[in-house]
């Protein structure tokens, strides 16, 4: 009887973990999930497995996931321009595009970090680790991102709906050694 209750709790916790909006909450639910599952192991008479599950499932993997989340949060954007810009702050106030992109990323729990570069876009693409690379010419905006980055899909959706009037060109690079997301 008790086993049934806890097994149903397991399923409910798994569904809750899948349906959360924030990834950090999902990690916490997963920790609770492994704690409950270790208790179920105990009820079925496997204390050895229960100890291992409790330690590895709820301590080590939870901390690992949290560290991974913190690492993934920083979103670096490289910005290059054709004309020689003088002041970085002036540039940001002049283009609402960048500002909107930043607010959108903040809303998605990321920490956007814009790096202004004077190098040509080819060098940036080849050498730097970037999540987004933006090349701003007079008429067009070229945006480069990783093909397998799911954040880039969201950015693409957002830009196409809100900034459809600008000449946007979205390019997807293959995941290389240098430009890992």
């Amino acid at each position, binding site marked *: 009887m008790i086993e049934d209750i806890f097994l149903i709790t397991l399923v409910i916790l798994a569904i809750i973990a899948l349906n959360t909006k924030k990834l950090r909450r999902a990690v916490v639910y997963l920790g609770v999930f492994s704690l409950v599952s270790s208790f179920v192991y105990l009820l079925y008479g496997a*204390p*050895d497995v229960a*100890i291992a599950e409790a*330690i590895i499932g709820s*301590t*080590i993997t939870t901390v*690992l996931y949290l560290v*991974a989340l913190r*690492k993934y949060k920083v979103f670096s954007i490289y910005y290059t321009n054709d004309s020689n810009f003088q002041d970085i702050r002036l540039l940001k106030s002049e283009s609402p595009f960048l500002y909107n992109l930043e607010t959108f990323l903040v809303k998605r729990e990321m920490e956007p970090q814009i790096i202004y570069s004077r190098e040509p876009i080819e060098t940036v693409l080849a050498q730097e*680790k970037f999540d987004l690379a933006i090349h701003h010419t007079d008429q067009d905006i070229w945006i480069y991102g990783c093909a397998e980055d799911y954040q880039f899909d969201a950015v693409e959706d957002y830009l196409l709906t809100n900034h459809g009037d600008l000449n946007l060109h979205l390019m997807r690079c293959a995941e290389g050694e240098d430009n890992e997301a």
Partner: protein
Amino acid sequence: MTDHSEIISRITGLLYPFILLFGFYLILNGHASPGGGFQGGAVLASVFITRYLVEPDRCIRLNTLKTAEKTLFVCIILYPALFLFVSPANHSELLNLIYLIVMNFLIGLKVCSGFTIIFFRFAFFEGGI
């Protein structure tokens, strides 16, 4: 986790000896009760991992740990072989007990250093930042 809280660091500092004690209990009593080398080693590793929560900026000496892990691995291979060849044909109960405890101890230390290396390597050297 960037702005670490005073409460968590104090409480984890208080808990260290108990976690260590529990880990060594699991390892040394593993032949008679639930637990054993792997589980005890994971508990010991969680001491180092929670240390990261207290002091997120400081790394530990990974190279020393790596050397220790390799040495322990060689010991884990050598010790059963040595036991097989050296011990008399009809070995006593006591000899078996000593063998189990030492083996569990070696495995526990190896698992502890392995988990710690994986975690700190991941936290400090992989990916962005």
